[in-house]
């Protein structure tokens, strides 16, 4: 046992040496680079504000999001909808509900969609891609065959329109936010799978894996202790981007009538879809949720991009 741990320790040194540049870890270096990047800062600020709002939404929202308090003051026939005023800082929506409260609560729902969909997509994709990559990298011909089959189906899944997946999920589970989460998450699975596999493949060809193989470390151990952790950089980037994609895709699903439709828990995409009928007369119904979506998605995307750059060893100076 001691001989083996010894070997692993030496390996760890080897790995650490790779990450260690100038006495700091890879992640620390990445963080330092992030801090210098204005895009990263902008993205991080947006994301932070968004998350804060989402957490505090219930406290901040002045009214219940589904209380049709001012329904009596609205009229579609004459297109009268009270705009911004003392009690309703952003006016009321098409059903006489407080716009601000809905947007605030909406941040919570949108964050939820993003997080759950991403976690779903990531876990399933990581499982698929991880298994596939591990098979290919380590288990010879049979492994290569397993990998080929898995990846071929994975590629096919990329060709199937995500809408079809969403519709099926909606029909089987009923229309709700959970459906949206699953549908969006499912579309992320092949992306994550491919990414993780590719990244693991690159790692498995790297020197330190070769070295550990030469040292006779068990293959499963190499995968778990070395390949997987080191493949996480690109995956982390994809996670950030996927958070943005999920929020946007949720809006697309809502537009096609497949969104989550719980009035008490409005989600921005659903609010935007709801507003479609009022674009000609009350554009603000759309502008608020659209701006929220765009800014938030941009925040995540900028952060993801900056992260990608910071983690990319080839772009480092």
């Amino acid at each position, binding site marked *: 046992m001691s001989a083996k741990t010894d070997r692993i320790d030496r390996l760890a040194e080897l790995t650490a040496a790779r990450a260690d540049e*100038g006495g700091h870890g890879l992640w620390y270096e990445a963080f330092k680079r992030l801090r*210098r990047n204005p895009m990263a800062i902008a993205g991080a600020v947006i994301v932070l504000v968004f998350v804060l709002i989402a957490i505090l939404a219930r406290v901040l929202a002045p009214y219940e999001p589904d209380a049709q308090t001012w329904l009596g003051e609205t009229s579609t026939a004459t297109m009268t909808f009270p705009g911004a005023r003392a009690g309703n800082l952003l006016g009321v929506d098409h059903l006489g509900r407080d716009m601000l409260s809905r947007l605030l609560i909406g941040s919570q729902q949108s964050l939820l969609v993003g997080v759950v969909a991403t976690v779903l997509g990531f876990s399933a994709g990581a499982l698929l891609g991880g298994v596939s990559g591990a098979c290919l990298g380590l288990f010879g011909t049979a492994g290569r065959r397993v990998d080929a089959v898995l990846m071929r189906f994975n590629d096919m899944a990329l060709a199937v329109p995500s809408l079809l997946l969403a519709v099926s999920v909606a029909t089987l589970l009923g229309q709700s936010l959970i459906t949206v989460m699953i549908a969006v998450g499912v579309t992320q699975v092949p992306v994550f799978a491919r990414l993780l596999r590719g990244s693991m493949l690159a790692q498995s060809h790297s020197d330190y894996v070769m070295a550990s193989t030469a040292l006779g470390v068990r293959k499963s151990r190499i995968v778990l202790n070395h390949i997987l952790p080191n493949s996480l950089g690109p995956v982390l980037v994809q996670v950030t981007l996927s958070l943005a994609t999920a929020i946007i895709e949720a809006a697309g699903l809502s537009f096609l009538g497949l969104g989550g439709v719980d009035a008490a828990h409005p989600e921005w995409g659903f609010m935007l879809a709801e507003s479609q009928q009022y674009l000609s007369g009350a554009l603000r119904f759309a502008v608020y949720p659209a701006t929220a979506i765009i800014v938030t998605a941009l925040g995540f995307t900028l952060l993801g991009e900056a992260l990608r750059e910071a983690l990319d060893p080839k772009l480092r*100076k």
Partner: protein
Amino acid sequence: MALLEVEDLAVTFHRRGTEPVRAVDGVSFTVAEGQVVGLVGESGCGKSVTSLALMGLLAKRGVTVTGSARFEEADLLQMSPSSMRDMRGARMAMIFQDPLSSLNPVVPIGLQVTEVLQRHRELRGDKARAEAADLLDRVGIPDPTRRLKEYPHQLSGGMRQRALIAMAVACRPRLLIADEPTTALDVTIQAQILELLKDLVAEEGTALIMITHDLGVVAGLCDEINVMYAGRVVEAASRRPLFARPVHPYSVGLLASIPRLDAPRGEKLTPIPGSVRDNIAWADGCAFAPRCTHAVEACVEGPPELTRTYTGHAYRCVNPVSREEAEAVAAPAVLPTPSLTEATPSEEESS
């Protein structure tokens, strides 16, 4: 008359959020027509940055280059980018360390050679191709017409370096800078390449700046040697005096760390302790002081000045190495490197 006169060259890298880094600091040296000058030092000592600064290949942003570098009556550091372009590859050329990564992987060797000919000698089409084949032939690449159509990955390491050299000498430059041209190569091939460089330089009367960390390489090649440490020249001398009587403890350290066949059995090599990172700023004293075995109080009291002896030997040290000590490590190194020209280049192609 000097072909290149570098005066007080300094290169500073700026990066937001960090202290500026002086990579090269007050470097001066001259290269005469047809002379071979060595720039020697560990990696990170600023020798490559010096060469890139001379070639105008440093990034424009975040880099300040000061001083002067007179080359054929013009100051390289003041030249407009377009004149530099006209100069590079024509009047002065450079050979890089890693021949594989220095060649464009998706462009055939032939085109990579002919593009220089086209740019600077206005040769086109068949003429350019014929000249390219001729060049490859001159650098010892067999079957040059076939090689022209091949891609870098199809060539062996030595062949690639030969191809790079062919590109560099294509326009018969007056000055050639070779940045560790042999480091990435097998030992046997290293010698061949050095021989080739030597011959080419001799044939054309081209001046050569040889940048290397390997004193063995300079020993057989260079007329003048500049030893650099942490961005400054710490010792400069002609070959013989330097090898016969190194003065700076760093040069002595470098010589002592060369493995020697004639060393008594069981004798250990004496490496220089620490690494280039473990230095102090020149402003606070001698940058080498933390690693120096000869360090004294005076070393950290201020930056040591360059002392120049009447023989032209220059060193930057307040407590130079004594003659006896120096000769103990130096003597064998002065032996000329064995010539390996007998080994035909085509051998390496057997792979």
